[in-house]
């Protein structure tokens, strides 16, 4: 019979062919539960690699998202340092509304003030510290604010403000004892305030008795320590008849580059009257620092996870190879190239890693991430989500496969390099 030589017996193509053939048979004919166990270990290792760092980053990302969604918007415009409000506010608002990529605009009046509960009782007391809290008093257009920051969704008790509400306010949860269950001189709170109670708001010389219509909570301190009035009333209270506001927040159309909008506003010369920042620019420094810290922590933990994965694969392949030492010797004895045998073990380890990452990727993107997006983890300062990007995960898979390749090759080489006859005879 005419035989055809496909390739040089020790050529790379042939080594791969034989290595793959042996690997497939070894995996196929291994104990099913052994395979299940190894794949489970690889899946858990992969999850450890992606989820632990993803949750760590997601923890702070949740806080960043909350600040963006409920406070800063996509573009945050505030007063210049030497001004107490944004001059030319109306023109800025009008210009922003005319930009095609701007979906919504909300303007806020802000004044510092004092809020008191049980103030009639307080008059009789020697000290009224416990029932008097300094805070920011904010005037909003309820509709516009809701479109931009979803404030109505943050009302946890009572009702949201309506356009014609007068002497009715929303109170941030962090101003209330029932929602901030610790005593701190930094965060003074009102002791007993319920929906429908009257509280007294003092802004400069103006004192108003108002009814608590709702309580808001957002895990954004700036929001949770504010008192919200309807803008018309607050404007009157603070005498801001020129309609100049203190904060303007823009919500942009999806996929809009906020820098382009910021540049458009600066191009109109509005930076002479206001500080125009993207959400990223306006993020408080501690959040930026925490983002970097948590990303670093995530990378450290991922690196540890990677080392654990490599060691796991090393042990699995080493145990596998050492228990098959005799048969490795036999394969060498009948002329199978040592490199083909090494490749068989590398293919096995890569197969286990691929199975683990495939199942892990499905669990991350098909189950865990969608679940956490819908049901964020209730951390004290943020709604933690899982940050797992396709590119970041792809990099982790690649790194895991490289680590697996090396971790599979080293033990296989250690065993394959042993003397053929000693391996066969078990010496």
């Amino acid at each position, binding site marked *: 019979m005419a035989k055809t030589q496909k390739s040089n017996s020790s050529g790379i193509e042939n080594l791969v062919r034989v290595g793959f053939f042996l690997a497939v048979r070894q995996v196929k*004919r291994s104990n099913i539960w052994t395979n299940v166990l190894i794949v489970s270990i690889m899946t858990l290792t992969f999850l450890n690699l992606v989820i632990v760092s993803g949750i760590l980053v997601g923890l702070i990302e949740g806080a960043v998202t909350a600040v963006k969604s409920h406070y800063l918007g996509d573009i945050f415009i505030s007063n210049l340092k030497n001004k107490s409000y944004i001059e030319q506010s109306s023109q800025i608002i009008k210009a922003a509304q005319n930009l095609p990529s701007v979906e919504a605009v909300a303007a806020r009046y802000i004044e510092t003030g004092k809020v008191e509960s049980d103030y009639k009782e307080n008059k009789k007391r020697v000290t009224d510290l416990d029932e008097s809290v300094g805070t920011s008093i904010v005037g909003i257009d309820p509709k516009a604010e809701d479109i931009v920051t979803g404030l109505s969704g943050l009302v946890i008790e009572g009702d949201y403000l309506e356009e014609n509400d007068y002497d009715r306010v929303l109170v941030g949860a962090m101003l209330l004892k029932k929602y901030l269950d610790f005593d701190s001189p930094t965060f003074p709170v009102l002791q007993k305030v319920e929906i429908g109670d009257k509280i007294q708001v003092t802004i400069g010389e103006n004192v108003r008795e108002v009814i608590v219509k709702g309580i808001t909570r957002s895990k954004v301190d700036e929001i949770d320590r504010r008192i919200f009035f309807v803008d018309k009333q607050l404007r009157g209270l603070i005498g801001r008849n020129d309609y100049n506001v203190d904060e303007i927040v823009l919500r942009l159309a999806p996929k809009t580059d906020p820098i382009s909008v910021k540049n458009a506003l600066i191009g109109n010369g509005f930076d002479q009257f206001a500080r125009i920042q993207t959400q990223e620019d306006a993020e408080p420094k501690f959040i930026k620092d925490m983002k970097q810290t948590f990303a670093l922590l995530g990378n450290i933990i991922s690196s540890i996870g990677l080392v654990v994965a490599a060691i796991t694969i090393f042990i699995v392949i080493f145990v596998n190879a050492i228990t098959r030492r005799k048969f490795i010797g036999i394969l060498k004895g009948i002329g199978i190239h040592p490199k083909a045998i090494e490749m068989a073990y590398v293919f096995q380890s890569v197969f286990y890693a691929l199975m683990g990452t495939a199942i892990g990727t499905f669990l991350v993107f098909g189950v865990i991430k969608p679940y956490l997006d819908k049901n964020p983890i209730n951390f004290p300062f943020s709604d933690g989500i899982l940050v797992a990007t396709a590119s970041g995960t792809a990099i982790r898979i690649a790194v895991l496969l490289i680590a697996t390749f090396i971790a599979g090759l080293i033990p296989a080489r250690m065993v394959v390099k042993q003397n053929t006859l000693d391996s066969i005879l078990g010496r």
Partner: protein
Amino acid sequence: MIKVKGLVKKYKSGTLELAVLKGLDLEVKKGEFLSITGRSGSGKSTLLYQLGLLDEPNAGEIIINDQDISKLDSTERSRFRLNELGYIFQDYALVPELTAFENVFVPLLMQGLEKKDAENQAVNAMQKVGLSEKLKNLPSQLSGGEQQRVSIARAIGHNPKILFADEPTANLDSETAETVLKTFLDLHREGQTIVMVTHEPEYAALTDRIVLLLDGTIGSDKRNH
């Protein structure tokens, strides 16, 4: 076909050095069926390991087909084993996760043959040893005699120039052992050169020539008629 000159093999055990083969000379002609006999520890298997390139001698020359194999590096030895030699182990030495067919097929694949050709050759070898019905059986699903015949099929699948067999009947009952011996005799009739280690005089008597090893040297070298 095989020329051995002054072959020495020593093993170290701690500070002790034990010479198993002590300057052995031997010649095997093409197509010859040679049996190597001797008591335990006489160096039968050690000689076969050296001839079969599974081990390296401390001194001496082994020339197979005019090629001095003692000068080959490990890769060349491996390739030589693959292409020129067939080896049958006492305990069959089949790879447990490969079927009978796959055990025979792998060395052919390693030779670089096209898959179809390798398959045909493996099937032919299995037919030759009378196991064409057991191609898909794993070694654990075969009897000792069948496993040894698969081992023979693996050794002859690539038409080796020399077949080495290390006590191939030692683990078999007499009836099965005779079947295996018959296979060797059939192969020999087809012109196969065979070197077999055995401690069974009646099986040695079936071969062309009996070499008796005594303490690492050749005690006698008789030709059967």
